[in-house]
């Protein structure tokens, strides 16, 4: 049965993408996998995976309003109705700020002069690329474009289709930071979320929040601690958190300055010269495989 695993972190920059790329490398040696980069705001997985682009499909934004200056009589009703402060007025000229507009149409319904139309703009594109490790589905969202949740859902739908067509049994998803709509879109219906945390007060704070969000959407979790020896005391705190919540810790990646050097060369950390790092990644993949293969109960249940 096809399994889906999403890598999340709450706080950004804890090593989510590095872990996802390394797992992709190791998983692809044994399995047929499909990859999805669901962090469409900051899509970085491709940087580490030597992709060759195969398909590019435009993505249009949700609607935004526009005022026709020929028809507008500057009555101001639209600005009054807009709850998103998206219709500023300057020298009694009303115009829509497309970056503030949420496309709710409230202005359109109240305008007595029928001066408002709804428009759609290109908002980015969705990509399918071939990598040495499997097909990669990713996307590029234009800066400021709205609704990354919707684009995330499209990326995941395409990844699922590729996996079904190609007989892959594992979809690995690099998720976005935070706990809001893109994270929800990236993790609904997955079999497991792997949470990457650093031993810092902020990462621990956000770990609890992303864990809460996953629980809210019924997604079981496991934990990886990155740079664990930067602060062993905080790592112990993460371990206590995991024990209390019945979560498995799949691995502890040591802090090593060879890691950023490897990433700067655009190589996954499976190629990091530091042996401790490579060993930790191998253990994480072992744990992931075990969890996937455990047929009756595919992923560890929550305590």
């Amino acid at each position, binding site marked *: 049965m096809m399994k889906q695993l999403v890598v999340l972190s709450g706080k950004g*920059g804890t090593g989510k993408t590095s872990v996802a790329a390394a797992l992709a490398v190791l998983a692809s040696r044994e399995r047929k996998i499909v990859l999805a980069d669901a962090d469409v705001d900051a899509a970085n997985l491709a940087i580490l995976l030597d992709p060759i682009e195969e398909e590019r499909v435009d993505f249009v934004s949700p609607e935004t309003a526009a005022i026709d200056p020929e028809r507008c009589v500057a009555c101001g009703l639209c600005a009054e109705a807009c709850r998103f402060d998206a219709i500023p007025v300057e020298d009694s000229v009303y115009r829509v700020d497309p970056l503030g507009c949420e496309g*709710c149409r409230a202005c359109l319904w109240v305008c007595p002069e029928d001066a408002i139309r709804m428009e759609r703009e290109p908002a980015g594109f969705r990509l399918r690329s071939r990598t040495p490790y499997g097909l990669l589905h990713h996307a590029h969202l234009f800066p400021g474009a709205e609704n*990354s949740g919707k684009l995330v859902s499209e990326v995941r739908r395409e990844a699922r289709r590729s996996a079904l067509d190609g007989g892959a049994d594992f979809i690995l998803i690099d998720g976005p930071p935070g706990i809001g709509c893109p994270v929800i879109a990236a993790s609904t219906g997955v079999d497991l979320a792997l949470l990457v945390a650093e031993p810092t007060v*902020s990462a621990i704070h956000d770990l609890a929040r992303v864990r809460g969000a996953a629980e809210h959407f019924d997604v079981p979790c496991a934990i990886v601690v990155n740079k664990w020896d*930067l602060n062993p005391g905080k790592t112990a705190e993460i371990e206590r958190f995991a024990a209390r919540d019945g979560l498995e810790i799949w691995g502890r990646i040591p802090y090593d300055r060879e890691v950023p050097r490897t990433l700067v060369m655009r190589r996954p950390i499976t190629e990091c010269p530091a042996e401790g790092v490579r060993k930790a990644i191998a253990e994480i993949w072992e744990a992931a495989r075990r969890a996937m293969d455990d047929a009756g109960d595919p992923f560890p249940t929550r305590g």
Partner: protein
Amino acid sequence: MILAVASGKGGTGKTTVAIGLARAAAAEGRTVLFLDCDVEAPNAALFLHPEWEEERRVGVLLPEVDPEKCTGCGRCAEVCAYSALAVVNGKVLLFDDLCHGCGSCMRQCPEKAITERLHTTGSLHAGRAGAILFARGVLDVGRAMAPPVIRELKRWKLGGAGGPGRLAVLDAPPGASCPVVETLRGADRVLLVTEPTPFGLHDLEQAIGLARDALGLPVDVVLNRADEGDDAVERFCEKEGIPVVLRIPFDRKIAEAYSEGIAPDHAVPEVGRAFRDLLLVLAGREGG
């Protein structure tokens, strides 16, 4: 000056820089407001330890239909841009999670059958951290929409905060879509914190595309862990004519202090001086 500190990529040190600047300005006796707009991962309080004084719940206004007045005409469902309403067998159904609280259904209902109630999706907190006025928004776990919480936070505390001699520091969320747009709108300038890696460069391009190109704001760059990568970010900034106003070398002491929730200038005094200098540079830009 309303200064937004943003980053594109998460974990580049955005909060560290925002805190460092706020503390440097406060140490000089300026009136400083710090707004943590990263409502999905609000961390600045872990470093500034404010004493909370005020709290309020915020969210979206959800419609409520009075079945006595409703005739099942379907107008509300027709005007809703998000299909958050449906009329089934003459009864109105609302899908809470889809509603943006725009008020159209209420305004357009011919029977005046709709009223609104606040559906809370987050909270705002404010207090004092020494001389710094501190406020943050926190999105409730399990809720999808960060922008309304950010919007309410700014409406609550930002009014007048950017006046002469004052400094408002907005700690923005990572990324380059809706929550960042909501934070950056109305700022005077943006400081983008990045790292000299291919990830940092890619996400910096996104952040510049938003802050400078789409929003038309003046932009400066801070390079964190400046010695831990390549020179691609520097070359990019030079080509684009974007000043790199501060380079912070990697320092295990800063990283360890950060992990304990200790402000960077507290751990390494030179960093505090660097932030004071940076403030002067930014103030000079604003003036000239």
